[in-house]
């Protein structure tokens, strides 16, 4: 049996390893546009010179030999023929019995002014992007970053470490608007401002001015224009599905998958960002593992779909954010704040629907499970921020922990 995996990211390599362990005899091939295995979450550490091509990897150097996986690196898949069960790439073709599409996403550049055409505009998604940013940043003075989400701020953080003082333009009224509430976000904004960054929040980029193929200014909706010799656009991503045309594989924005992560075609699966179920690393890994099991004939559904969770760490200020960030009418909100921390919990019908912990996230992992499993806490005689796994503690005869509340709910 030959298993082919497109993509050497979180989902792809987790799947490759899982297949190898389940099926020692089968052939496993990974094909990736990436020439180096890299963790997107660490690309900012590449830009800031903290890591190089080798140390942005998330697997050991001997991964492919150790697990006997064939890796075609630096190869881009251009077409899939699902009836002939064949993948075409720049330089050849591969036949498969089962196929996993784990191509992640690409950054989207909005069609504003000449953002899409100019040579001094960069996205941040691949190591090649980080390499290009690093090279360009070396000679850049005025750097504008569009988008203050996690990816945008990763870029800004790296540039700050290089001694730059980027200017950030963001449509929302706060940084990290999809991840935190305004209060927690404000703490990061203040730290970035202390480091010399400037923020234009609540502003849209409406146009650009250019010279010799390069953007020299971006124009904002208040009429202001910001000089720049380099731009980073972190305004969102789109699942990487461009090679699926005429493949017979059904997709809309992302690839359509069922609960086993199978596409509309038997034996062809999708996992990670490209399946559109999540855009975060832990979920991509889990999907890779589950798709692999199904590819090996072990039926297992992808059930741990919860994806509204983040941790943030800039300047040593850490934040955990799980679930809803803003309260609705009728919710009970608890806030605990002092010089060192900001904690907020939102309760609805006796259950926690969202939590933000900033400053100290020690021993906080249980919150995600409390929230995603909708476990009642109003019957526990304790202040909400004193809750811990102790209140749900159970242990089996092998010494593994489990949640009593979950056991009760069956």
């Amino acid at each position, binding site marked *: 049996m030959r298993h082919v995996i497109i993509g050497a990211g*979180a989902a792809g390599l987790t799947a490759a390893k899982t297949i190898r362990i389940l099926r020692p005899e089968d052939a496993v091939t990974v094909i990736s546009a990436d020439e180096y295995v890299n*963790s*997107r*979450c*660490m690309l900012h*550490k590449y830009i800031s010179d903290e890591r190089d091509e080798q*140390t942005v*990897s*998330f*697997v*050991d150097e001997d991964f492919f030999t150790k697990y006997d996986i064939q890796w075609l690196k630096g190869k881009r898949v251009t077409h899939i023929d699902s009836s002939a069960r064949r993948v075409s790439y720049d330089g050849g073709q591969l036949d498969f019995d089962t196929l996993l599409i784990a191509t992640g996403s690409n950054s989207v550049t909005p069609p504003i002014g000449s953002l899409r055409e100019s040579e001094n505009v960069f996205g941040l998604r691949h190591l090649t992007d980080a390499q290009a940013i690093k090279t360009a940043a070396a000679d850049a003075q005025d750097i504008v970053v569009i988008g203050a989400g996690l990816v945008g701020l990763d870029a800004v953080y790296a540039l700050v470490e290089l001694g730059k003082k980027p200017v950030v333009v963001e449509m929302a009224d706060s940084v990290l608007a999809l991840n935190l509430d305004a209060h927690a976000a404000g703490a990061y904004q203040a730290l970035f401002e202390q480091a010399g960054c400037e923020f234009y929040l609540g502003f849209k980029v409406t146009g650009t001015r250019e010279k010799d193929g390069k953007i020299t200014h971006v124009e904002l909706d208040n009429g202001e224009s910001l000089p720049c010799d380099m731009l980073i656009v972190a305004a969102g991503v789109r699942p990487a599905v461009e090679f699926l045309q005429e493949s017979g594989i059904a997709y809309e924005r992302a690839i359509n998958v069922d609960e086993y992560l199978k596409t509309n075609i038997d034996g062809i699966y999708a996992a990670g960002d490209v399946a559109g179920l999540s855009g975060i*690393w*832990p979920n991509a*890994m*889990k999907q890779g*593992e589950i798709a692999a099991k199904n590819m090996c004939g072990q039926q297992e559904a992808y059930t741990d779909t919860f994806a509204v*969770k*983040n*941790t943030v*760490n800039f300047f*040593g*200020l*850490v934040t*955990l954010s*799980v679930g809803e960030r803003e309260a609705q009418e009728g919710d009970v909100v608890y806030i605990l704040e002092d010089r060192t921390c900001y904690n907020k919990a939102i309760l609805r019908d006796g259950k926690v629907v969202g939590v933000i912990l900033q400053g100290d*996230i*020690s*021993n*906080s*992992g*249980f*919150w*995600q*499970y409390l929230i995603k499993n909708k476990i009642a806490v109003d019957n*526990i*005689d*304790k202040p909400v921020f004193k809750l*811990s*796994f*102790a*209140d749900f*503690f159970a*242990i089996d005869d*092998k*010494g*593994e*922990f489990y*949640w009593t509340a979950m056991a009760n709910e069956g």
Partner: protein
Amino acid sequence: MKRILIDMDKCDGCLNCSIACMQAHRADHKTSSVYDLDLTDTANESRNTILLDSQEHYIPLFCRHCDEPECVKACMSGAMTKDENSGQVCYDEDKCGACFMCVMNCPYGVLKPDDNERKRVIKCDFCEDDEEGPNCVRACPTGAIYIEEVAK
């Protein structure tokens, strides 16, 4: 694999386990003794803790080195791995990117960032350098924690 098993009924919350863990993980642990351990020095954080439930029962919270470790499945740097031979969940500080998604994903809230710099994860290493095994277990006066071989 070996696991630290927990008999909650025997725990009387003395925290000897935490003190032993702090001593075992201080920088100069080989040449120092618990008698001059600085309990307020955040460089010596304990990997284990004892929690209280709402009835004030002691609940010893020790890393399980889980069969299906969520921390490993959340790790984006390759720092957190499940050792196929020993079964332990190992943490490589040098590889860690300090994103703390492992902290977020531990279903039991065992993990935490280090208090000093928030650059690494405080995680049980089963006292890997110590031939006599986990110090917490040896320090427990009641037998509430003990080591047993469990099926993988």
